[in-house]
């Protein structure tokens, strides 16, 4: 239990920030979704033509 209490310590600082940022976060979320929709409308133009061949032939040797 001591463990949990210690972990909660940063909570006050966090909550303050969360309250301030929540409207911004969801607004930003909407914007990101709209941009994603635009990208998905156009994405087929840049995608590899044959996904199955591309994925099958993408074979690498291990490295490092």
């Amino acid at each position, binding site marked *: 239990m001591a463990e949990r209490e210690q972990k909660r310590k940063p909570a006050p600082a966090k909550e303050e920030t969360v309250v301030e940022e929540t409207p911004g976060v969801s607004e930003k979320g909407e914007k990101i979704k709209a941009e994603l929709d635009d990208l998905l409308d156009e994405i087929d133009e840049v995608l590899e033509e044959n996904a199955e061949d*591309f994925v099958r032939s993408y074979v690498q040797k291990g*490295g*490092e």
Partner: protein
Amino acid sequence: MAIRKVCGIETEYGITLRGAGESNPIAASSVLINAYVASLARKVEWDFEDESPGTDARGFSLEGSSPPEVETHLVNAVLTNGARYYVDHAHPEISTPECLDAREVVVWDRAAERILVASMDAAKSILPPGQEIVVHKNNSDGKGNSYGCHENYLMDRAVPFSRVVQGITPFFVSRQIVVGAGKVGCEAPGVSWREVPFQISQRADFFEEEVGLETTLKRPIVNTRDEPHCDAQKYRRLHVIIGDANLSEVSTFLKVGTTAIVLAMIEDEELGRDMTLTAPVSALRQVSYDLTLRRPIELATGAKITALELQWHYLDLAKKYAESRGLAAVGEEVGADILRRWEHVLNGLETDPTSLADQLDWVAKRQLIEGYRDRHDLAWDDAKLKALDLQYHDIRPERSLASRVGLERLVGDEEVASAMTNPPRTTRAWFRGTCLQRWASAVVAANWDSLVFDVGGDPLRRVPMMEPLRGTAALLEDLVNSCSTPAELIERLGA
């Protein structure tokens, strides 16, 4: 007092030769790098004098472990920006020059990508029509083969390595929720895509040990390669192999920045209580597979904690550390930016991870792939989704998906273009790069900690660079500018 966290990244790129039937990746990598180097003025060979990748930081050598081999016969070039560009195993690999802070790493890592793009263009012009070399900045082929993106950090030799391992392991297990590059499916033996359709990290599937020297088999969370490339009495270079290659600049910045701060805290013994995990290797995978970020892992004390709580724990300590001791070890200004962005990201992960789709690779990739999947009503094992995953890492401007998902930029295009040929001014890389710019024909060999000159007549002259923070523009620019020949430089340096 923690020493300055001089740092850098070395990235192995996935490589494919298209339009040629069977292809040899080693040959393709050589063609790629040679094509780039041939497009530059002159190639300087890497000098292997001081390479010893088999030395173990724990001070012993494990029986039966196989130290990595350095393949001296393969292409290996030193660039005027201080970077090293070479063939490693079956991949083209580029090491950034030594950088002073996380922001510089972002600049020279981006420059490295641009160098790879320029190399693909150069290769295209010499390959037969219809053939093309394509590289991907990723870490796995989705079929169980992995290649690395390694970070390096300068550490004080006096710090016992066991303290580094103890302090950094829980951080490495948890940091993937911030810096993971995301992956469709799973490559761990016996785990199907149904159980893990998408995971946070590219690399978590490939780690089997907690600590060790290997990088290609039985990969360890903490790598013990002890090859400082500088004064070995004073320093060690922590060689970090667990990271994913990032496309997001914020991810790269946080990966290097947060790690550097935690390492500084380890040096200063400011890491607080022991957060040792019961089973770090299985925890690593569990964290990577848990998109809810809610499943706890177990500490050796028996307490449970989530990866997100672990990251809050480290951030909390880092903020206190910044207040009490300052962030000189990572740069005060950059350090403050790291803490601010780290906190913003942890808040986002806690409240709404999708809000971070412009900052974190795994979130951006997941949004893209789930959006595509929903739109076309695809199963998770559809090849189209794996293709999207791979293409996220395609760095060709006309194909790159990462460059189309709206990731926040931290550095400017002009700065990056300049870093393709110019070294950081803040480390010894400045001296290496500047000598190559001015006197390439007299530099017969170069490596991280020395340059070898042929100034005619006499024996070759080796200029040692054992201090990563000497050889900077601040220290040497006036002297170098006042020399009209390399012979004069050698004389004035007293080498």
